[in-house]
């Protein structure tokens, strides 16, 4: 087709959400008064006007086929006036104004194999990335990890068991698209990239690959008479940042790309300022299809948190209160030299006091 025949795009950008919003929500926009939690997975919001709306939160597989999508929309048509929303963690929220439709909706959606929950002090659905299914740089899968993990944590999704809400995230490379979580399961590479020198000059913009390295471990080199790159393996931190701009820098390895577990990431400003997650366990095998070792560590941490944390404490606040020595004592996880930070600002994470727990 000639360029002149091509259809120019309509640059409409982000669409107006009000056209897709439940009329009760449109009418009471900015005028909600309070909410209650009638039961797990259900919220009841009451507006200044006295109008109310029920939210039913449903966990999904996130990678949705159109058949499943239509099942979920038909539930919305039957019980929720045809209006829904997705949360940041890919749960569906149905909006119901008629209280008598809440239980039938739950029954119908559960009959189709979906799970209601994820509100208040539960373990809500994992946020995750694309993984082997569709990413170009993944060290592991994403949807499969979530499926395996949520199969194990289903009771904690469906009930209010936890001291406070628990957000779990996964990331399938060390760029960490998955974000901060109370518990995060992230890829951790343990060996420098293997370089396919025959390809570097063809596919990589070498100066930008050199610039991408966080520790300046990459330099241009001639290998077998061809321009390529070399890695100072003593400096290399195995982050894989060179791999996206230069696929011949092969960082992913069936054996040496491991998983690490981090805790204490929290976006909320409630009680304390937002916090970053901290390393607790590494060298966990990347073991599809169900990643039992990673799931075991997550369940262990959740068990200790559930038993020992106070109401409203997020995982990070709990560890902060009881101290890291107690965390390693309670979980039985090993404390190693790798837990001590050496990145910029690392001294701020050392204990410059005599505050010691015995």
């Amino acid at each position, binding site marked *: 087709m000639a360029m002149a025949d091509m259809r120019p795009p309509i640059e409409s950008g982000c669409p107006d959400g009000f056209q*897709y*919003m439940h009329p009760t929500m449109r009418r009471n926009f900015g005028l909600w008064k309070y909410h209650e939690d009638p039961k797990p997975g259900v919220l009841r919001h009451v507006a200044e006007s006295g109008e109310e709306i029920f939210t039913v939160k449903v966990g999904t597989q996130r990678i949705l086929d*159109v058949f499943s999508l239509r099942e979920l929309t038909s539930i919305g048509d039957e019980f929720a006036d045809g209006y829904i929303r997705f949360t940041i963690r890919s749960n569906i929220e149905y909006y119901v104004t008629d209280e008598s439709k809440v239980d039938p909706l739950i029954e119908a959606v559960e009959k189709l194999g979906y799970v209601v929950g994820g509100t208040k002090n539960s373990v809500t659905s994992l946020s995750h990335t694309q993984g082997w299914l569709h990413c170009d740089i993944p060290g592991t899968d994403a949807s499969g990890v979530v499926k395996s993990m949520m199969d194990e944590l289903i009771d904690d999704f469906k009930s209010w068991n936890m001291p406070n809400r628990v957000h779990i995230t996964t990331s399938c490379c060390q760029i960490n*698209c998955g974000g901060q979580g109370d518990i995060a399961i992230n890829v951790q590479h343990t060996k420098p990239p293997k370089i396919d020198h025959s390809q570097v000059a063809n596919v990589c913009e070498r100066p930008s690959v050199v610039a991408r390295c966080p520790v300046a471990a990459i330099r241009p080199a001639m290998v077998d008479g061809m321009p390529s790159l070399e890695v100072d393996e003593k400096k290399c931190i195995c982050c894989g940042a060179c791999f996206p701009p230069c696929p011949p820098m092969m960082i992913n390895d069936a054996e040496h790309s491991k998983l690490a577990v981090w805790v204490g990431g929290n976006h909320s400003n409630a009680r304390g300022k937002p916090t970053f997650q901290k390393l607790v366990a590494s060298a966990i095998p990347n073991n599809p299809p169900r990643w039992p070792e990673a799931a075991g560590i997550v369940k262990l941490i959740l068990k200790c948190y559930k038993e020992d944390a106070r109401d409203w404490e997020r995982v990070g606040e709990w560890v902060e209160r009881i101290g890291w020595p107690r965390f390693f004592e309670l979980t039985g996880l090993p404390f190693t030299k790798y837990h001590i930070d050496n990145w910029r600002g690392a001294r701020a994470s050392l204990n410059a006091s005599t505050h010691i727990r015995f």
Partner: protein
Amino acid sequence: MAAKKIYETPMLDELESGPWPSFITGIKALRDNHDNQFIADVTSSLLGQLEHSYETRKGYWKGGTVSVFGYGGGVIPRFSEVADAFPESKEFHTMRIQPTPGNYYTTDMLNKLGDSWEKYGSGLQTFHGQTGNIMFIGTTTDGTQKFFDDINDYGWDMGGAGPCVRTAMSCVGAARCEMSNCNEHAAQRWLVNNFTDDVHRPALPYKFKFKISGCPNDCQNAIERADFAVIGTWRDDMRVDQAEFKNYVEAKGRQYIIDNVITRCPTQALGLNDDNTIAVDNRNCVRCMHCINVMPKALRPGTDKGVTILIGGKRTLKIGDLMGTVVVPFRKLDTREDYEEMVELAEEIIDFWAENGLEHERCGEMIERIGLVNFLEGIDVEVDPNMVSSTRQSSYVRMDGWDDEAIKWFERKAEA
């Protein structure tokens, strides 16, 4: 209709058991039951390649260059490196489409999008990717243009990919949350739709993200994940319904309220009175939201609402994770002028960063490199003590401009 070729998937089959919904079961349904031959074949091949990834613990997609006419970004090109073994999914590109603020849909619209995707793609989609886009996963190069032309006609536009302004995100917001302190929908659309050219034609140092949360609970993870985070807040007193507060005390007991509300206030701004009412030191409240979260019927944000803007949040690459930090402590967001001023600030920031950021350097990393004060001078914003957790600890700084700066401070205070 079934796929022409079925690949064995013993490992993936294990992901069909258990109580959580299975994406493998869903993909198999497309393979076995979809009446579009392309969908049946491409999903079958996808399962074959994914099984191969599970067996070998490696990914087999590579990027490339695919875009729709008139745009430079928004398609995530994927070409299979193992197309010889799994030829039907040789091309499997993702379309990033911008959702509404807060991700609202009618079921009719979702079905319509599903219909379009069935016509031109694999029938697989995700609501939503980590940046916030609807991800329509899996089509050919030819299919990207056809699908985009189709849905663009009824109101959907491409999101960002590459070094550009990215698709923005907002929380559920004022539409259904009593904690909301701003119109998240308007804020998102004012901001990101001012930069549609920068969304569609990547030409910035790296990605730039806007995220909006209606209150400091920050359900949208804006502070940690957005270059430009807008957080709803208020500056008058929080609203207290003492009768409802007493109801909580009666229901839960004084000890519970002391342990879970009063002593959990980060600035010790709360007290429990002898008559079971609450005392609030609003001057020292930092709007953390905790007490309001515990007792939403008794406590509410105030009515003089607005936003705090924090700049520079991002994830790990390249210098480590950074939180956004305060650049605008408080700003009203009511009138057209208020929104225009916020957009102007965003323009200033993006322009300055485009001029001064290094290749692949996020805005927060640039600020880390040049220092907050140089950044503030670059975008013409005055310093404010709300921008710091503490003042300087190092005496190694040249301070011969002190008197002038002190005069400026008193002048600004006099104007306020």
